[in-house]
C-alpha cells in the first residue's frame, strides 16, 4: 500500500502539548473497554484506601467474633452472608482489598525497578555484561515463578513483607527481558546513532534518547502485571503462606471458605469475585494503555 500524502505541513499554531494530549485521550476514550477498566481500577483503589473504614461491620474486620451469627445466608444485612465465626464476609472482603492491592503495588514496583535496571544495563552495555546478566535472568525464569516465590517465602518465613519480597524476586526477570529487548531495538534507531555522532555521552544517550522511548511498553506491562501480582499474592495466601490472620486477605478468606463447601458456599463468593474484578480491571486498563501509549502499536 503506498503511503498516503506526506503528513500535512505543520498544523496551525496553538499550544501543541494540549493538542497531543487531546489526541491521546480521544483514542483512550474510543475503546469503551479501557474506560470500563479505568472505572474498575478506580473502584479497587478506592476500597484499597478506605476498605476497612467503609466496611459495614468494622469491628468484624478487627477480628471480633459472634458465634450466634455463624453462617448466616446472604441477606440484606449481610449481602454475602457471614463466615464460620460470624464475621460479615463483605466487610472482610472490602478490607482485604488493601492487602492485595498494596502487595500488588509492592511486587510490581520492586520487580519493575530491579528488572529495568538489569535489562537496561544488559541491553546498553552489551558484550559479556549482557551475556552474564541475561543468562542469570533466563535461569531465574526457568523456575516457574509461583514455585520460586513459594521456595523464597518458605525460606524467609511467613509475613506480608517476606511474601512481597518473595514474589518480587521471581517477578523481575519479565521486566529484564522486556527492557533489554526495547533497549537493543532503540540502540539501532538512527536518532540514537545521530546522538552518538553529535558526541553525546553514553549516559545522555541512554537516559535522554533510549529510555524515554522504552517507557511506554514498561508502563503497559506494569498495569497488566498489577492484576497478575494480585492473583499471585492471593494464591500464596490460598495455600497458607502470606499474611497471618486476623489481617483479612482474599486468598486466606477463600482458603477457609473452601473447607465449608458446599453447605455454606456463599462465604467463597465475595473474595473470589473481588479477585476476578480487580484483575479484570487492571487487564482492561493495561490493554487500553497499550493502544494509547505504545508507539509501535500505533505506527
Amino acid at each position, binding site marked *: 500500500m*503506498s503511503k*498516503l*500524502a506526506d503528513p*500535512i*505541513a505543520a498544523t496551525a499554531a496553538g499550544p501543541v502539548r494540549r493538542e497531543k494530549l487531546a489526541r491521546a485521550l480521544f483514542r483512550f476514550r474510543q475503546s469503551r473497554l479501557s474506560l470500563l477498566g479505568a472505572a474498575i481500577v478506580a473502584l479497587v483503589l478506592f476500597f484499597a484506601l478506605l476498605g476497612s473504614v467503609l466496611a459495614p461491620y468494622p469491628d468484624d474486620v478487627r477480628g471480633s467474633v459472634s458465634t450466634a451469627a455463624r453462617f448466616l445466608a446472604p441477606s440484606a444485612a449481610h449481602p454475602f452472608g457471614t463466615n464460620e465465626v460470624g464475621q460479615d464476609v463483605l466487610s472482610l472482603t472490602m478490607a482485604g482489598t488493601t492487602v492485595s492491592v498494596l502487595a500488588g503495588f509492592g511486587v510490581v514496583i520492586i520487580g519493575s525497578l530491579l528488572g529495568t535496571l538489569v535489562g537496561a544495563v544488559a541491553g546498553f552495555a552489551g558484550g559479556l555484561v549482557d551475556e552474564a546478566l541475561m543468562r542469570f535472568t533466563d535461569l531465574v525464569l526457568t523456575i516457574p515463578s509461583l514455585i520460586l516465590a513459594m521456595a523464597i517465602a518458605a525460606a524467609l518465613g511467613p509475613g506480608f513483607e517476606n511474601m512481597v519480597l518473595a514474589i518480587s524476586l521471581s517477578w523481575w526477570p519479565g521486566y529484564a527481558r522486556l527492557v533489554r529487548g526495547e533497549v537493543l531495538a532503540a540502540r539501532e534507531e538512527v536518532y540514537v546513532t545521530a546522538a552518538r555522532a553529535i558526541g553525546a555521552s553514553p549516559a545522555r544517550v541512554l537516559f535522554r534518547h533510549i529510555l524515554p522511548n522504552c517507557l511506554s511498553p514498561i508502563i503497559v506491562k506494569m498495569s497488566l502485571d498489577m492484576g497478575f501480582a494480585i492473583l499471585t499474592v492471593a494464591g500464596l495466601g490460598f495455600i497458607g503462606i502470606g499474611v497471618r490472620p486476623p489481617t483479612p486477605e482474599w486468598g486466606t478468606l477463600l482458603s477457609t471458605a473452601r473447607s465449608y463447601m458446599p453447605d455454606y458456599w456463599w462465604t467463597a463468593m465475595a473474595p473470589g469475585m473481588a479477585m476476578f474484578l480487580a484483575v479484570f480491571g487492571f487487564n482492561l486498563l493495561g490493554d487500553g494503555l497499550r493502544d494509547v501509549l505504545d508507539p509501535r502499536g500505533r505506527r
Partner: protein
Amino acid sequence: MSEALLEIRDLHLTMSSFDGLAHVLNGVDLTVRRGEVWGVVGESGCGKSLTGLSISRLVPTPPARYPQGSIRFEGEDLMRLAPHRMQALRGKRIGMIFQDPTTNLNPTVRIGEQLVDVALAAASHDPSLLDDATPQQFGRRRQARDLAARLLERVGIPDAQARLASYPHEFSGGMRQRVLIAMALIGRPDLLIADEPTTALDVSVQAQILKLIQSMVADHDIGVILITHNLGVVAETCTHVAVMYAGNVVETGPVAAVIERPAHPYTRALMAAIPMRDTPRGQLQGLPGVVPDLIRPPPGCRFAPRCDRATAECRARFPGTGPVAPGHAVACYHPVRQPKIADG
C-alpha cells in the same frame, strides 16, 4: 488500434482516516492496449499505487470507497464484478509485482510450492495452462512444478529445477524480484501491473529487471502498467506515460512526445527538478509549495496553488483533458506548446 485491454473512466476514491475523508483519486482516466507499456509516474501521495491496486480491487473497502467511475477490463466493469469472479481474474488475467522483494514472498514456504500454488489457482479456471508443460498423465501438481521450473529459467534463475526447493531468504534481492515476476506471469495474464518493481534494487540490478520485463512483454503481447516515481525508468522502459498529481492524471501520451514536448506545467516542473547531464551547479529548479491536503483539496485544478500559469479559471473548475498532439493529451487550460526541450 486493437480494442482496449483496460479502460479506467473517471475513477474516484475516498479514504476515511482519523483526520477526515481524503479524496485520494479525483477522476482518473487511463486506457491500456495490448503491447503498450504505460509508465504511471508521480510523486508520493499522488495516488498512483492506489490506482494500480484498485484495478485488482485489492484496496480494502471499509476504509476506502469508490463514489464514482468504472474500470473496464476487456469491456467488463470490474467494479460491478462479484468477488469470486474478481478472484478468478487475479493471477489468471491480471498479474501484479510489488516493490520490496524482501517482504513479498512467504518466508515459511519453498519457492517452488509458492509458484505451484499460483499456477494451480490459474489452472483451475483454465486447465489447458498446464498441458503444454508436461503430458497430462503425470498429474497436475507435477505439471505445475515443471511449468514453474521453466518460468524460473525464463526469468534468468540458474539451475531452476534445484532452486524450487529453496526458501525466499536464500535468494538475493534481485533474484527474489525475478521469482516474483515469474509468479506474476505463470498464469499467463493479459495485463501486468508492476508497482515500483525496481525501486528497492541497486541501479545495476534495476537495469536487468527492466530489460527482463520488456522481453516478457514482447513474448506474450500483454499490456503493462509500470508505476514509478522515476522518470528515467519510464523513459527507458515504457511506450506511453501518464503523469499523475494529487489524484489526477494530468498528462498522457507516447513517451517520446511527453519527454520532448511536456505540455503540463507540473510535468515541466518535474523534469526541471531532475539533475540532467548539463544542469549547472545550483541551477536546479525545485518546485516551491507543498502537495495539497487531500482532506480539504483546493477547488478546480489541484496544481493551481503551485502553478505560475494558474488563472481564475484554473482555481474555479477542474480542466477537462484536451489533446495537444495526436495521442498526447493534457488536463490544463493553458498547456505549454513549445518545440523540443534540449536532449535530456
